[in-house]
């Protein structure tokens, strides 16, 4: 009787140690993500930014693994149950790669064949102030003209979408 009692206690201590460990891991990963995020703000190099974004995605996946495996206890389930959940989720690999690929291909197509779409990405909008919206709007529009003098003048000014 006392033997099973100590067994239970040992099991409890083990479970609590695991909870503590996973909590620390999740917090540390989140703090690293935030530090990378702060670091990225003042960064200009596109390649370095992309590398950091990749690191953040890896940390995100690691956090997801720890939550599912330990907090949701999936790691301690029967293997067949794990497989019925994990294998369908592999569809996401295809979803993500196919749809993101499609998105960027659509952007390239529009930049090649839709002059209006491409032009929109070159016209800077004057940062507007709350107080005097109307006059600023006019100023912004004149700035458009001066920025793009070679554009055909008969074309109406593209209105921002807000």
């Amino acid at each position, binding site marked *: 009787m006392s033997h099973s009692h100590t067994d239970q206690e040992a099991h409890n201590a083990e479970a609590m140690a695991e909870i503590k460990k996973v*909590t620390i891991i999740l917090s540390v990963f989140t703090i690293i993500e935030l530090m990378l995020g702060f670091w990225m703000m003042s960064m200009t190099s596109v390649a370095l930014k992309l590398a950091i974004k990749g690191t953040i995605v890896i940390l995100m996946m690691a956090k997801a693994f720890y939550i599912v495996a330990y907090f949701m206890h999936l790691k301690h389930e*029967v293997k067949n149950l794990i497989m019925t959940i994990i294998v369908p989720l592999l569809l996401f690999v295809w979803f993500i790669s196919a749809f993101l690929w499609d998105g960027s291909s659509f952007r390239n197509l529009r930049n090649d064949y839709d002059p209006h779409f491409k032009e929109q990405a070159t016209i800077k909008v004057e940062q507007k102030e709350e107080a005097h919206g109307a006059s600023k709007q006019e100023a912004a529009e004149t700035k458009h003209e001066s920025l793009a003098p070679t554009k055909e003048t008969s074309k109406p000014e593209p209105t921002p979408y807000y």
Partner: protein
Amino acid sequence: MSTTTTASPNEAKLWGGGKSPFNSEYGKVMMWYFLMSDAFTFGAFLISYGTVRFSTNGWPNSNEVFRSFPFAPDGVHAPLVFVSIMTFILIISSVTMVLAVHAGKNMDKSGVVRNMILTIIGGLAFLSCQAWEWNHLHSEGAWWGMNPFLNADGTASTTNFTNFFFTITGFHGFHVFSGVVINIIMLIMTLLNKFEQRGHYLMIEKAGLYWHFVDLVWVFVFTIFYLL
């Protein structure tokens, strides 16, 4: 013992009836499958966000959009600070939920009650933060169909940014809200000794699975909207 002539005798025995092949309760297995389908719903939202973002030339800088903090004077810009507090609130409430499940396995009623109350407080705190953030963004002119923010390069942005933000964080917030409601029901049932009478706290485990899933989704939403 002697009739092991079939190809896989163990499997035949495992699924032959009288045993629990997944060694898990029915409701728990079904909760897993529900969460799997919910993961596909959230995945569809987030992937469509990614697709639209990849098909657009410019995109607002999240550090300029989400830079406000409650009670901070105007002009104080604190990007990422408020959302990291929200993230930690959800992580901590996830930990208290694990502790509640753990206490339930030991038939420790007072431990379940204490940790469920902490989890509910965490959920309400998260919802309050989100309500403040939505309210603040709305006061800046952001809503479905309205986007006051410019792209990071200063060009005009589309309403896709705000539409996706409010739809996805709203859907997640709705999940948090239903999680809090479920947790309150579990707390009441615990206080009424329902689980003591049943002899197990499996319902707490199922509510816990749902709550952890909410935390899991936030890991993705937080990273994708605020960091990337």
